[in-house]
Structure formats: structure tokens, C-alpha cells
């Protein structure tokens, strides 16, 4: 699997975007056959805006979304926390370690 750049994501209506490094794991990675990619998001980027941009590019992730939590730079994203330029955002589907 590979890490790719997404050149086709449109800027936000405000015309201001920033890049997030998105990483996929477990069933999401299996579904997309991709380790991750760089996603352009409006700035500032709340979780809902992130999901909107992500699903525009990968609509098939919608079916897994209910079980997915987001992590920002290796920590679970807080309820009202925004994503910042250059953040690493991981999609964390239900875990199964142990």
C-alpha cells in the first residue's frame, strides 16, 4: 500500500485551505488499499469539515464512519477541537488489539 497526494480536492468557499496528512488503519486501510494521503481542508477545520472533504474524495468510507474516531497528532480528537495546518489525522476504526 502507498501514501498518495490528492491533487483534486477543491479549496474551501473562502478560498483558504491547508493540508492535513491523513492516515488509514485496519478496515479503512483494507477498504481503500491506501495508507494515507494529503487532504486540503478549510482553515480552521472542525471535524465536520474534515469529514465533508474526506467523504467527497472517498465516499465508500461513509459506511464505516459510525465506528471511526479521529486522532490528531497521536491523540484522540477532543469534542470541539479543530484540526490545524500540518496536523496528522488518523482515522481510528474500532480497535481489536490484545
Amino acid at each position: 500500500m502507498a501514501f498518495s497526494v490528492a491533487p483534486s480536492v477543491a479549496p474551501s468557499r473562502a478560498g483558504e485551505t491547508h493540508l492535513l496528512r491523513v492516515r488509514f488503519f485496519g478496515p479503512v486501510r483494507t477498504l481503500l488499499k491506501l495508507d494515507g494521503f494529503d487532504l486540503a481542508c478549510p482553515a480552521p477545520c472542525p471535524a465536520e469539515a474534515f469529514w465533508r472533504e474526506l467523504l467527497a474524495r472517498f465516499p465508500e468510507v461513509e459506511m464505516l464512519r459510525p465506528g471511526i474516531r479521529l486522532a490528531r497528532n497521536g491523540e484522540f480528537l477532543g469534542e470541539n477541537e479543530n484540526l490545524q495546518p500540518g496536523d496528522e489525522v488518523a482515522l481510528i476504526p474500532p480497535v481489536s488489539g490484545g
Partner: protein
Amino acid sequence: MVVDVAIQTGPLDLPDDLPPGAGAVVRFEGRVRPEEKEAIIEALDYEAYLPMAQRQMEKIVRDLGHAHRCLRARVRHRVGRVPVGETAILVEVCAAHRAEAFALATAFMDRVKQEVPIWKSAAAQQQ
């Protein structure tokens, strides 16, 4: 409490030593079973989001250490391919008395299965 957590490839093991004052040592080994979701398997493949997975396990152990006064907790989680019968996770908790050690080990395993970004997938049995 001493906390020692690692994620690694290859078989898991811990040195056989005890912290001073330990009267109880609880050791749990989670091993790969030959069946997964009603299918026969020969191994499980584990992947982890590093370093978040290690930090989460350390955080859980420290958090539980406030409620269960233990002397030391050591955790090893394996990633990569783990054949049937081999150990995927090894947890060892040392305490003065057994109740605290059992409680921390049990609570830790419950939280690992909810909060630690590690995933397993079955490796199909080859014919």
C-alpha cells in the same frame, strides 16, 4: 509504580525479576486461537498506529495505577504476523497483594480492547 510498555515484532518475553515488596505477580498472556469469526486460521496479523498505541497503553496503566496500588506493570504487545498458539499480548503486574494486581491487569485488558489503536486481521489457512 514502574510502567514498562513496548510494542514489538517477534515472540514476547519478560525478564524474570521482581520489584522489592512484591507479594503477588499476575501474568496474563493473550494467545492466538485457531478460530476467528468461525473461520479456521493459522495466524493473525496485527497492525498498530505508532507511537499512539504505545502512549495509550502507558496512559491506561498510569491511570489505573491511581485506583489500584501496584508496584510495577509491564506490557508487551506483538505486531506483525502472530501464529496460532503464540502470544499476542503479555501483561505482568506486580503488587504487594493479589487483589490490586488482578484488578489492574483485568481493567487494563478491558481498556486495551476499547482505546488502543491496534487492529488484527485473520491470515487465511493455506491449503
